[in-house]
């Protein structure tokens, strides 16, 4: 498209005109949109794209009718990562899943003839095909507002974004709404921060707006460090302009002329996408001096993180942008008043900014009509772990966990039993089956002892050990603690020692009390939220899965059979036929036995890798895994006592 010919955009009428023109150009065209999110890329969607382009060119050369009516688009993440690479043919919304490069000829042929490639469609449990994207169960129960555009636009084309009405909210705000009016609209919308805490966005803006000083900053927090969450990355990669538009509106409201987008180092494609968006927006006069002749100046820089979980905390993030060690500071003076370079600074999460254009376009009332009274709007969750349909899902606040996991997620993988869902990343907690009908919003999750966090939702089944999961998160946090304050640095280390003890079968009765006491200390005395919320995982696992801790400590047993020191493998001499396959596969030569004689495992050598059990032919199934009371290894206990712990 003629990007270079379009001169700087002068205002709302201009945007509407361009949008209409672009729409008319696309009229009657068939669009093949191929997901190019990181998930689908790993499934080699780039090869699929290349093959489709090649195939289409062939058809055009053959001057096949209708072939020049087809447009191919590389889009951002569609969310259904489990079944990638994903392809949607517009306007019919025909959705193909798991597309391979060799399917290209069929796809192009059928798109030209307006037919459907049957074998690539979604099949429901009865084996019948579902053609339209929105009818697939994974999408059917979602309500996509923020994420909807991802599948429609090429993230590297600003024209695509303008075509679907992009930057009209900014034009409207600059022309018709004084900053106070924008602020009151955002406040009325009851939008709450999507990054973790759920603080009211309007109030945050107001504090920075009213803070003394001429120089103010706005920052996008894209340091999405929570393991298991990737919605921010997918928005930045799939629809970067929506974040940029929200940021410019925020800057206009607050009175900031400079902004930063802090993207973590692990997200190279997101950096590329947002940098390209900034450049295009500048060319169109949507960034820079005198934006759309409003007299408002604003520009933005991208800061790449260098890998530190704690730097997602607001004051630590600002220290990192300043080029220092990204450690948090005490916030008796909020960063909204004294933040980056000691100037008033507003910091919001990616998804929060992406909500702003929708609120300005459609009004606060519209926004509040979705969700619960306390938490308006929708929220994107990354549904991962032991669930059939993994991917990104956007639902209105207040939907129950059960609906998300069973209706959208399609239930638990391999027909196993659900055990718990972990929400909110390392700052959150686990939620057991009894609370599955909990409506998901900021306040309900908090009441259950967890939190929304940035929206990670990790489903665990009966084969996951909750003590081990808690150990994993405490280890994560202990590794990532910056070490500035003692309660977090030492408290987490002590928690970790206790967990190591418990999963090694050396837990003591007093340990449970000790865990609880340390949690109280961490919650009350830590400098920032990393230490302050670390107790959630400990407290919730203790509250809902106390019997598992009990089994580890009293019976030296791991009911889920995960914690290695507490399990053992044994060969049943009745069933063993003496085939020696397990003897060969054992990496530590712990299995003895001659051919045709029953084998035995030397428990003192066994490293519990489970290779023998996997190797044992199914017809014998002679090897069993067990846990329970068995002789306490006295020697280890003695060593432990020596260390004085």
């Amino acid at each position: 498209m003629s990007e270079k010919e379009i001169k700087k955009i002068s205002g709302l009428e201009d945007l509407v005109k361009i949008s209409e023109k672009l729409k008319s150009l696309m009229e009657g065209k068939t669009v093949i949109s191929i997901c190019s999110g990181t998930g689908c890329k790993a499934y080699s969607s780039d090869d699929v794209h290349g093959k489709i382009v090649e195939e289409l060119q062939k058809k055009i050369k053959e001057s096949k009718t209708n072939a020049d009516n087809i447009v191919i688009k590389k889009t951002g993440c569609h969310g259904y990562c489990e079944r990638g690479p994903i392809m949607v043919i517009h306007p019919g919304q025909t959705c193909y899943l798991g597309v391979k490069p060799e399917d290209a000829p069929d796809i192009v042929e059928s798109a030209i003839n307006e037919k459907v490639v049957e074998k690539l469609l979604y099949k429901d449990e009865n084996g019948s095909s579902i053609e339209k994207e929105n009818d697939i169960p994974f999408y059917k129960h979602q309500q996509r507002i923020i994420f909807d555009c991802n599948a429609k636009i090429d993230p590297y084309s600003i024209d695509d974004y303008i075509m679907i009405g992009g930057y009209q909210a900014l034009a409207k705000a600059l022309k018709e709404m004084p900053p106070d009016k924008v602020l009151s609209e955002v406040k009325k919308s009851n939008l709450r921060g999507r990054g973790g805490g759920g603080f009211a966005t309007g109030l945050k803006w107001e504090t920075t707006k009213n803070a003394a000083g001429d120089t103010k900053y706005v920052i996008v927090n894209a340091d999405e460090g929570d393991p298991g969450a990737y919605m921010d990355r997918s928005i930045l990669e799939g629809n970067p302009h929506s974040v940029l538009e929200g940021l410019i509106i925020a800057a206009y409201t607050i009175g900031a002329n400079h902004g930063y987008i802090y993207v973590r180092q692990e997200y190279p494609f997101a950096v590329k996408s947002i940098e390209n968006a900034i450049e295009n927006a500048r060319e169109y006069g949507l960034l820079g001096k005198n934006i759309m002749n409003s007299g408002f100046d604003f520009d933005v820089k991208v800061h790449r993180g260098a890998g530190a979980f704690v730097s997602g905390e607001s004051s630590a993030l600002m220290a990192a942008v300043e080029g220092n060690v990204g450690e948090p500071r005490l916030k008796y003076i909020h960063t909204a008043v004294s933040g980056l370079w000691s100037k008033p600074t507003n910091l919001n999460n990616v998804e929060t900014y992406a909500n702003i254009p929708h609120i300005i376009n459609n009004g606060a009332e519209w926004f509040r009509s979705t969700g619960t009274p306390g938490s308006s709007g929708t929220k994107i969750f990354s549904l991962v772990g032991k669930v059939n349909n993994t991917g990104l899902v956007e639902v209105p606040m207040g939907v129950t966990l059960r609906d998300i996991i069973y209706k959208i997620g399609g239930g638990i993988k391999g027909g196993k039993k659900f055990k718990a869902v972990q929400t909110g990343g390392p700052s959150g907690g686990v939620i057991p089956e009894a609370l599955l009908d909990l409506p998901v919003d900021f306040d309900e999750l908090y009441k259950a002892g967890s939190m929304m966090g940035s929206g990670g939702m990790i489903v665990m089944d009966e084969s996951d050990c909750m003590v081990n999961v808690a150990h994993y998160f405490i280890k994560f946090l202990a590794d990532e603690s910056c070490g500035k304050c003692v309660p977090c640095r030492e408290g987490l280390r002590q928690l970790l020692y206790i967990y190591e003890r418990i999963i090694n079968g050396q837990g003591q009765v007093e340990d449970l009390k000790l865990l609880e006491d340390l949690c109280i200390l961490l919650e009350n005395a830590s400098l920032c939220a990393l230490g302050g919320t670390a107790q959630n995982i400990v407290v919730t696992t203790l509250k809902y899965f106390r019997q598992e801790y009990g089994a580890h400590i009293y019976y030296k047993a791991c009911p889920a059979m995960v914690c290695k020191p507490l399990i053992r493998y044994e060969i049943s001499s009745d069933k063993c036929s003496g085939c020696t396959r397990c003897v060969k596969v054992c990496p530590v030569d712990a299995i003895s036995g001659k051919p045709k004689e029953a084998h035995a495992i030397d428990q003192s050598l066994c490293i519990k890798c489970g290779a023998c059990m996997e190797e044992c032919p199914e017809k014998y199934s002679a090897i069993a895994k067990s846990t329970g009371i068995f002789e306490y290894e006295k020697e280890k206990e003695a060593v432990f006592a020596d260390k004085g712990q």
Partner: protein
Amino acid sequence: MQISDLPKYPLSQDEITVINEVIKKYRDKKGALIPVLQEIQKNIGFLPVEVQKKIAAELNIAEKEVYGVATFYSFFSMIPRGKNDIRVCLGTACFVKGGKKIADKIQKELGIKPGQTTLDRKYSLQVNRCVGACGLAPIIIINDKIYQKVKTEEVMDIIYSYNK
């Protein structure tokens, strides 16, 4: 690790030129240190003490501050990276789907711990925080190529395929 443990790394003329160019680009900018370190690491591969000293002198900040930043963030390394950079994701989704087993296997086979490089400098190993491809867990990344749903049995074949 002590600074004195690290081998001396005399800078070559090319490297000095690169460093000077990067510093020139950022010299008078606010918050320059992290972008400078990122860009220099991208070119040289790691950040030996000699480089850090030079950066400190050129940007007129204390050496301890450069060292502090270079050791705080996990992206910066004071050890040379191998020719092939293996990263194993240990985010929660990968962890519950067996990422730890994969990391253990690689450590055992290559005889290095996370953060280390094999003696022949062919491989270096890192364990990563979530890289945000949780739908495909467990994953490993070798030189920016993502391998999804990796099985423990296959992982060494994937790795050794780079040894050609």
